[in-house]
């Protein structure tokens, strides 16, 4: 009887187990693909107004409970779209990508994701391209150009390209907001040509804001009249709501309720 019970338990649990060849491969269980461009199409279907509202979260790693709480709160908000600033895994494994997506796809608004440094190790770059699309991407909406930039130069040097960012900024006919994982002023990571390119990007008159994650704490600063905003990690249900209207930005730290109003450069 005991054997029968054990066997039944095994049969029941084994029926929930798909085949995955290895944690090191780029095989995914979930079928979500090209999510950044798919959500761009969703965003284009929305009406535009004078105000843009964006929800921003970062660095969930394997903290799925707080991520789920943030997703729940974002879904109750009236933001236009959402940006995740990367580091949604610890080690870029395929099962971590699947686990993150299980929460991510529950966001009921167009959502975009940037590659973080943790997401870019191992098979991470291949997994990211499968799920989200190119590691560097931009879209235009409501007379802004939004750039999603891959900043993980140590982890994925093959696709890191500071010249792409500079070119995408130079070619824009719209004001620009850049989303990236690591700060473009990170002195540990960026030198010489990359530091020069990023300096020119930040000083460009069209670049209104550069928003990053990576360092896990909230920070707001000004660099050559460009607003630099750093998102905290999702721990303790931290996320940001950014509202932009007529060159004014209102940044709300949603966990604490604090709000800061700033003028963006003309």
């Amino acid at each position, binding site marked *: 009887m005991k054997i029968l019970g054990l066997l039944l338990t095994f049969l029941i649990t*084994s029926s929930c*187990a*798909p085949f995955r060849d290895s*944690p*090191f491969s780029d095989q995914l269980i979930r079928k979500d693909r090209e999510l950044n461009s798919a959500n761009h199409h969703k965003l284009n279907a929305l009406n535009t107004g004078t105000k843009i509202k964006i929800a921003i979260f970062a660095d969930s790693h*394997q903290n*799925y409970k707080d991520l789920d709480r943030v997703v729940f709160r974002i879904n109750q908000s009236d933001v236009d779209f959402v940006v995740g600033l990367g580091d949604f895994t610890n080690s870029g*494994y395929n099962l971590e990508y699947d686990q993150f997506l299980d929460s991510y796809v529950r966001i009921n608004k167009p959502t975009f994701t940037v590659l973080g440094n*943790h997401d870019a190790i191992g098979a991470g770059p*291949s997994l990211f391209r499968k799920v989200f699309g190119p590691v560097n991407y931009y879209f235009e909406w409501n007379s802004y150009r939004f750039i999603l930039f891959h900043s993980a130069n140590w982890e994925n040097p093959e696709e890191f390209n500071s010249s792409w960012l500079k070119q995408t900024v130079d070619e824009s006919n719209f004001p620009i907001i850049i989303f990236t994982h690591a700060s473009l002023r990170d002195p540990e990571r960026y030198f010489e040509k990359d530091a020069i390119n990023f300096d020119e990007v930040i000083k460009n008159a069209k670049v209104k804001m550069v928003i990053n994650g990576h360092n896990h704490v909230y920070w707001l600063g000004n660099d050559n009249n460009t607003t630099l905003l750093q998102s905290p990690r999702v721990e303790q249900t931290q996320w940001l709501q950014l509202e932009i209207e007529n060159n004014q930005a209102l940044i709300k730290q949603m966990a604490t309720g604090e709000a800061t109003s700033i003028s963006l450069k003309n």
Partner: protein
Amino acid sequence: MYSNEGRHYTQVNFGYRYSRWQYNIDDKTLHPLQMGIFTTRTLDYKAYFLESPSQYPEKNYYDETRLRWGFEFGSALTFWSTRFELAYLVRIIDSGLVAVLNNSNKDLQYYISSGVSLRYRFE
């Protein structure tokens, strides 16, 4: 073997399994429930590491990624004078265990994986 961007790589697995029960059926033996632990290590030393490579400021910048461990259980049938064993296994690796502890959406399919193996027993 596994693949990444169309290229094939090798991983090496070591495991220890314990069978509490066994049933003889003619010249075959059924082990209805084996339980064990395993480690799996990739031989792709470029993408995976034990210590963070030299481009990172510290050796522990990242946790090691080349080696993982986990638990497994399954059923096995030995045959051909017990030399060969056909087994079905379910595994959960350590990263999955962390996710189970942290995740409120316990969708098991992301945390466990199954497999079939044919083994030769050296005795």
